[in-house]
């Protein structure tokens, strides 16, 4: 599964994209796995209310299932326009 990071999430974790092998069932479980890895992940995911997630390029909730998903992206609330 490809995991993408944007804006300050990308800066905090230090890379824009990585491939992750996981058996996590939901987004929330994937986040717990990532947080357990290293401090920079724990820092990036410390406050979920400041984060958004997209599954295969559609906005989703943190309790959404990962089954069949190929691309997960984490980023702060959008500020376009």
């Amino acid at each position, binding site marked *: 599964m490809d995991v993408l990071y944007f804006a300050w999430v990308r800066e905090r974790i230090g890379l824009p994209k990585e491939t992750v092998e996981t058996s996590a069932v939901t987004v929330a479980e994937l986040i717990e796995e990532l947080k357990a890895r290293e401090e920079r992940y724990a820092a990036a995911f410390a406050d979920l209310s400041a984060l958004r997630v997209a599954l295969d390029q559609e906005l989703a909730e943190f309790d959404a299932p990962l089954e069949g998903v190929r691309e997960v992206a984490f980023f702060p609330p*959008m500020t376009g*326009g």
Partner: protein
Amino acid sequence: MRVLVQQEPFDFGSEVEAFATGAGGAGAVVTFTGVVREADSGAMAVMEIEHYPGMTEKALEKIASEAITRWDLTDALVIHRHGRLVPGDQIMMVATAARHRVAAFEAAEYLMDYLKSRAPFWKKEILQNGAEDWVAAKSADEDALRRW
């Protein structure tokens, strides 16, 4: 309907003219353009816009299609830039065409409200002293979605 995500500047005048001329049967054309302002915090040198290639185009197309259906628009246009901009640069534009003015205005405001909070763009301000700051999302922008 036309949705463009690009690094290059766009020509607001020509885009608006072409849109108004092409919007057959429309009595009303509304346009919005956003211009990079100086940062509230001080002297900004550069506004950097990051986006999510692929998702951005999909999100904008979805928002534009919804507006066309809901307000029975004869046409809609969205252009949004990414990359490095400086104060005074035009960052994005939307245009809507409808038979009556209320529909054209409402659809343009809807496009803007949704685009601000649902399209994957992030702005970073780089000040003249080198300090960098990601622009924080405003709760007012999220609140604006509730009226639709």
